[in-house]
């Protein structure tokens, strides 16, 4: 998947390089090359693409989780001779040019390879951190001065932007599943409000956990841990996201959604975060936190808390367990040392039982969907293989209780949820259909309740 997708950019870059070299002449090339490197860097094309030229590429299987280096088979030789020439010239360039302090193209891939060997599987919420120049910079002393150009990146990491995106997408799923005509403005406002609320909650969570995050491999590169941001700024950022977010939800969407959003922030920051270090009950609280966004999406659309909202919330609630329990299985050492009370450490049997239980619950909940008139009966049918597969992995995890089964379950949960929600959406029962069904058997004489859009 990744190899094919990465084919065109390196060629384009190589072509650009070649054109540049030709037009500017070798003498000026070092500066141009550096310039190109910076351009590439800015455009978030990492050095992996240059690696491609050297016939060794890095694949990212499961983008969020791991990288492995694989020496490329010789069969795919550089088609153009110029590319090889480029290679040579590039090597020559690097020998002559003094090493710039920030960007060291050649030595990096090697260092990154070494790092990759040692790196444990990271959690879904954190991408394998930008490995570009990290290991070297990590060993240096840095001035604690906030640079404006770094601020967006820092705030993105502070607000766990990828997790926020997932939360917003579950809220959108809730909105989309609601049996009302689709209102784009409301949808966008609800998504924005939910996103802001999630950013605020995540920032406060990081604010509360600095020394604990420093001691865990998964979280040791967070902005507050690295001193890229002061705690005061983190709190101000959280306030400036949370207050407008909740206000937006309350005033522009509806008060119920706003209340749910505020409650969720409270639950996450003041209940879940401290509870993580006190009792294993934190996992259940965290599951509720994850279940609320789709409920918010539904209430944003309909304005009321229906059975459908609760069902969607229930599906997300059940999904959290196989997802989190499988993840936590591989982090037992870090949790133990960091003082986190997690089922995987204190009650391993319960951890696996609960994961399996909730995988099976997903089957039940999917079956309940058509009974509550949310989807057609196609949904339980199509989702059955998905739910059976995750249940099977849950059973393997329950039985084997080892790292490989936990990882398989975790990876599966990552694609299982989006797919399930997608299938749910495609099997959504059109509300027009429902109204016709309601109207048809009625006689002329009886007053029928018209559902206003």
């Amino acid at each position, binding site marked *: 998947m990744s190899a094919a997708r990465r084919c065109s950019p390196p060629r384009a870059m190589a072509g650009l390089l070649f054109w540049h070299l030709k037009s500017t002449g070798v003498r000026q090339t070092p500066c141009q090359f550096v310039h190109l490197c910076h351009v590439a860097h800015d455009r978030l094309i990492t050095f992996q693409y240059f690696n491609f030229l050297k016939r060794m590429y890095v694949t990212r299987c499961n983008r969020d989780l791991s990288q492995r280096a694989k020496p490329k088979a010789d069969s795919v030789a550089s088609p153009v001779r110029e590319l090889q020439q480029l290679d040579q010239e590039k090597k020559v360039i690097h020998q002559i040019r003094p090493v710039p302090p920030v960007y060291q193209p050649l030595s990096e891939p090697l260092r990154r390879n070494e790092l990759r060997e040692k790196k444990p599987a990271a959690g879904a919420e954190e991408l394998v951190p930008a490995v570009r120049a990290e290991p070297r910079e990590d060993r240096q002393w840095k001035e*604690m001065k906030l640079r404006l150009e770094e601020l967006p990146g820092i705030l993105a990491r502070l607000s766990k932007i990828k997790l926020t995106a997932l939360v917003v997408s579950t809220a959108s799923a809730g909105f989309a599943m609601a049996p009302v005509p689709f209102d784009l403005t409301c949808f966008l406002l609800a998504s924005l409000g939910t996103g802001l609320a999630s950013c605020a909650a995540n920032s406060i969570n990081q604010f509360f956990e600095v020394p604990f995050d420093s001691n865990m491999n998964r979280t040791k590169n967070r902005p507050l841990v690295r001193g890229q941001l002061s705690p005061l700024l983190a709190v101000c950022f959280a306030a400036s996201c949370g207050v407008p977010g909740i206000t937006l939800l309350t005033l522009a969407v509806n008060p119920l959604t706003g209340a749910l959003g505020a409650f969720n922030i409270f639950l996450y920051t003041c209940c879940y975060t401290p509870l993580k270090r006190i009792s294993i009950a934190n996992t259940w609280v965290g599951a509720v936190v994850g279940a609320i966004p789709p409920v918010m999406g539904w209430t944003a659309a309909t304005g009321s808390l229906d059975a459908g909202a609760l069902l969607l919330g229930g599906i997300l609630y059940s999904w959290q367990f196989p997802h989190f329990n499988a993840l936590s299985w591989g982090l037992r050492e870090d949790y*133990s*040392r960091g003082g986190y*009370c997690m089922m995987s*450490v204190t009650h391993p049997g319960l951890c696996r039982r609960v994961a399996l239980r909730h995988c099976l619950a997903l089957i039940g909940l999917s079956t309940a969907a058509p009974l509550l008139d949310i989807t057609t009966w196609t949904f339980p049918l199509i989702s059955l293989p998905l739910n059976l597969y995750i249940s099977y992995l849950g059973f393997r995890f329950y039985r084997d209780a080892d*790292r490989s089964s936990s990882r398989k379950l975790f990876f599966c949960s990552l694609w299982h949820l989006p797919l399930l929600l997608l299938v749910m959406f495609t099997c959504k029962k059109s509300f027009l259909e429902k109204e016709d069904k309601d109207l048809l058997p009625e006689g002329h004489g009886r007053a029928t309740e018209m559902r206003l859009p």
Partner: protein
Amino acid sequence: MAATRVLRGGCYCHRRLLSSASSGRPTVERGERQESPGLGFSPPAHSRNDWIGPPDKHSNLRPVIFYVPPEESALERRLREARQEAQACDQHFWARHNRAFSQEKEEFIFSRLKAKGLEMRDETGQKATLNAEEMADFYKDFLSKNFRKHMQYNRDWYKRNFTITFLMGQVALVRALRWLRWKKRSVGG
């Protein structure tokens, strides 16, 4: 002293700091940077910011060298000292805790291997390890043993964090007001 230390988890670090302060640790002069013994780094003289270093190998926390501005106010001094104290407390707690963890882990592995009749290192000289399932008993044990210590530390950490952030807020507010006053004066005058 040792008994208090055992019973009161994180609180002992306050006593320790007080005792070290009374033993004549030099106070920082205004305009100078704090001494950084053993950190192996001095920030450049012209820099007016704090500097943060790589993670400590025992505590995994990043040490900060604080900048003392020549015109440091009382409030700013309180903030700086609170941050220094917090850093020292955290460093002490985590270094000790992590060292205890590694030590107890080694002992556990040794005892388990002995029970199995194996040596710490096998024929090739590689260190023998237990798999994750065998280690799980140790992790569970360690967590429950240190539960009270963590509870104490959590309370202290939350208190310190709020205090420091609040002080930062106050300092920022005072600085902002000062800047506004200066702006008004320079515009008016």
